[in-house]
């Protein structure tokens, strides 16, 4: 029997579009920009497509919220080497600060969201500062503890509305503002982060992940670099939290729910870690899926787990990396 082996070859167009030759024909420009355009146009047109199904518009908003958190997880884990399970921490802090600014201090919504994003990110970074020297699983555990800690503090001291939460946050002026705020911010962060990680400063962060000792030996403070990265990640998380608080017009302890830490990680695993786009794709699949599975009640967790396991076992690289390969390369069988 003849032995056959699968061989992967770059498509001609991929080779042609590397470097400056990319702009020589419409077809090649499309090859490069196509996937980006599909994503942008797709996201922007979702609210119109779903005009007849208002319930699903809400799902799109939540999907974007999870995308942002997943993006911040992917960035910290795969570009800086910090495994941060603090999604719930960022969302909770962002949400409560937005509520404080909006309800207690009567700032309008277009001030309270940006302020909550920045102040929340500063607060989260300061809280995580002492944990930055911790490595691997220890850092992960601390980031997981903070939301629990704040939940109990709010319950026990009955501050910030206690178990009822803070109600009466102002809503968005209309549906379109509500939708496009989150869609556009998500796209901006996605393309912004993809750019950022290829800049020199992004390379330094990747250096911290690969070999932090050599970064120190180059005269760069790794504590500074890590806190910068945590700040960027918390900006995304706190924005998501502030947005969600205004979306529900309510900020309560369920903003510290574990879902915000776990589902984004699952999204990154499914979408493909280290691609950043994968974080979005994973959320686009998982969040609507969990809505559909809602009919199954608690049984949906089982289905969820089965899907995750299957992805990890059969396509552990994640969808995005798989798709990228299919897009740029073709396969053929060759004799060995």
């Amino acid at each position, binding site marked *: 029997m003849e032995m056959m082996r699968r061989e992967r070859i770059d498509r001609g167009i991929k080779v042609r579009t590397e470097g400056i030759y990319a702009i020589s024909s419409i077809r090649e420009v499309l090859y490069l920009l196509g996937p980006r355009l599909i994503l942008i146009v797709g996201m922007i047109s979702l609210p119109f497509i779903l005009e007849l199904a208002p319930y699903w518009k809400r799902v799109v908003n939540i999907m974007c919220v999870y995308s942002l958190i997943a993006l911040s997880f992917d960035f910290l884990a795969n570009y800086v080497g910090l495994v941060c399970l603090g999604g719930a921490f960022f969302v909770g802090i962002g949400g409560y600060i937005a509520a404080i600014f909006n309800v207690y201090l009567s700032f309008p919504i277009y001030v309270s969201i940006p302020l909550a994003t920045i102040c929340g990110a500063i607060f989260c970074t300061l809280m995580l500062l002492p944990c930055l020297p911790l490595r691997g699983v220890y850092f992960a555990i601390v980031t997981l503890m903070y939301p629990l800690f704040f939940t109990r503090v709010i319950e026990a001291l009955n501050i910030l509305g206690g178990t009822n939460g803070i109600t009466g946050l102002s809503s968005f002026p209309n549906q379109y503002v509500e939708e496009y705020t989150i869609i556009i911010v998500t796209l901006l962060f996605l393309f912004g982060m993809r750019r950022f990680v290829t800049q*020199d*400063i992004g*390379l*330094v962060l*990747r*250096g911290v*992940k*690969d*070999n932090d*000792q*050599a*970064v*120190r*030996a*180059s*005269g*760069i*403070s*790794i504590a500074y670099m890590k806190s910068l990265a945590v700040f960027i990640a918390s900006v995304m998380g706190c924005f998501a939290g502030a947005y969600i608080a205004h979306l529900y017009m309510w900020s309560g302890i369920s903003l510290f729910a574990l879902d915000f830490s776990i589902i984004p990680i699952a999204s990154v695993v499914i979408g493909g870690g280290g691609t950043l786009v994968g974080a979005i794709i994973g959320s686009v699949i998982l969040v609507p899926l969990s809505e559909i599975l809602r009919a199954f009640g608690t049984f949906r967790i089982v289905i969820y787990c089965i899907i995750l396991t299957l992805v990890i076992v059969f396509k552990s690289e994640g969808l995005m990396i798989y798709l990228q390969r299919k897009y740029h390369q073709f396969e053929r069988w060759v004799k060995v």
Partner: protein
Amino acid sequence: MGEGMSGDIPILSTKGISKSFGGLQALIDVSFEVYRGEVFGIIGPNGSGKTTLINCITGFIKIDSGTVYFKEKNITGWKAHKIAHEGIARTFQIMRPYYSLPAYKNLIIPLWSPRARKIGGWRGGGKHGDRDTVAVDILEEIGFERDSKVPYKIASTLPTGYQKRLELARCIAVRPEIIFCDEVFSGLSMSEIAGMLPLIEKMKSDGITLIMIEHRLRELFRVADRVMALNFGEKIAEGEPFVVIEDKRVKEAYLGTEEV
């Protein structure tokens, strides 16, 4: 050299450095001085405390007692990145490049460092967009063929010889005044070492002070001006290479363990 320069101020000096790990005394009261422009060798059998000495001086581990002066400034207990920022670079005995980055991108990190940006003065201005070019320039200088694919290969796939050169390139890129080299010759073939010796000479002529830990004494002695020998964490001899190697205690320390 050395003797003739003793009137000068040393660029680096240590006074009575001691360090223990639990019960193990890794360094005992080590004092030495290095002068600007020298190549200073540190020799000694395995486990004699050479790497620990570098770690202590460069701030990677805390000193139990003793002082380190860099250009008369007391830098004892400073954080590692501040010491590097002052101008003391080092290689690591266990090479770990930024393995997921291409070789030339490995140099973007030191080139981005506050020290490299402050000093600047690279060909091409060293401004933001030029760092890639500067990186390839440095790699070419250190022996990567510019027109080949080698500078663009992912660092983890490079052969040992190139990884060693990359370690040195990473040091050069921060424009240091002193470079500590921790066994850069080990694991290399004779011809690879022969290829590295001119690099050492070049760095020396560029005014960089080199402190080299080496096991390969013959190769070290071709470039070193002075050497110091350690054994069980203690300094046992110091001086001209061929005087030190004739020292009775040094011979005993190496006896049967190393080729001399």
